[in-house]
């Protein structure tokens, strides 16, 4: 039996799981504050536009989007199997493609800032 290539998909999942564990709750608090009308300074247009204008921030944002979407896609794939959806190849293709498409879209929008 051959060794599996699962590390390709599992590596970014593990990295994304770690990143979202450290970062996502704080990000959610920021947008929750904005949702409640107490918009944090960073989410004002000029501040955020200037922030997202730097190359380092663009890279960090694109990386965060990729790892967030990928780890969620991988978990959803496993959950689908747990819930009895047996078309694993189809589910995996759809979900990982969606994560990559989302990342590509984010990169495109970042390039326009």
């Amino acid at each position, binding site marked *: 039996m051959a060794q*599996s290539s*699962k590390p390709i998909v599992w590596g970014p999942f593990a990295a994304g799981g770690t990143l979202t564990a450290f970062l996502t709750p704080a990000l959610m608090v920021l947008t929750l504050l904005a949702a409640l009308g107490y918009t944090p300074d960073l989410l004002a247009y000029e501040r955020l536009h200037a922030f997202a204008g730097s190359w380092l921030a663009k890279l960090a944002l694109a990386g965060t989007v990729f790892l967030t979407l990928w780890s969620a896609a991988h978990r959803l794939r496993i959950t689908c199997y747990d819930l009895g959806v047996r078309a694993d190849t189809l589910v995996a293709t759809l979900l990982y493609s969606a994560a990559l498409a989302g990342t590509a879209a984010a990169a495109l929008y970042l390039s326009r800032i």
Partner: protein
Amino acid sequence: MTGRRVELEVLRYHPETDAAPRFQRYSVDCREEWVVLDALNHVKETLDPTLSYRWSCHMAVCGSCGMMINGEPRLACKSFLRDYQGVIRVEPLAHFPIERDLVTVIDDFMAKLKRVKPYLIPAQARALEQGEYRQTPAELKRYKQFTLCMNCMLCYAACPEYGLIPKFIGPAAISLAHRYNQDSRDGGRAARQEEIAAAEGVWECSFTGACSEVCPEHVDPAAALQQVKIKSTVDWYLAHLMPWLKK
């Protein structure tokens, strides 16, 4: 000496006469200090000699008497009656085919155990006169916890992924492979990786963690499997992104 009358609901299956398993109720006068295995022995000795189940040591060492007790995989010899109220439901270990009553067919696990080569494959052969393979206490500590597995298979009954994907090599076998991979005297990791780093190996684990919760010896198979995943991932990226490092 105190006692109480315990109601046992035991899954029965006789392949000669039964199309499907059925539950049978027994009322047993039990002593306060008895475990479920004592109650089953009492049933067999006094009420129903046709009841079949595996057991041997009665002291949580042999790993033979694993069964589902109120839906949870447990050793019958380690499950005290006083910890249960009402009817106690006893079934064979989940996810394994039933041979007869509480006896399961364990061929699948035995075959997987063999595949992962759970024995020392010396890194360097030594002649008898060179003496023993020596190891420091720290090197022993690295794998000692994983040596405690007694192949009771409770982890397989607890693992939803094994239930869903019968090909999955599963918690105990992979943990035992990891035990030898972690051994400073061993050189068999590459051979074991062919099995445990394959698609049916560690990658079917979704880290439910149930295996570690039910393990009567606190082997913590879930920990072993995550460590195997990380090491296999590092292997893969090194081999594919930095092939010049390959020996």
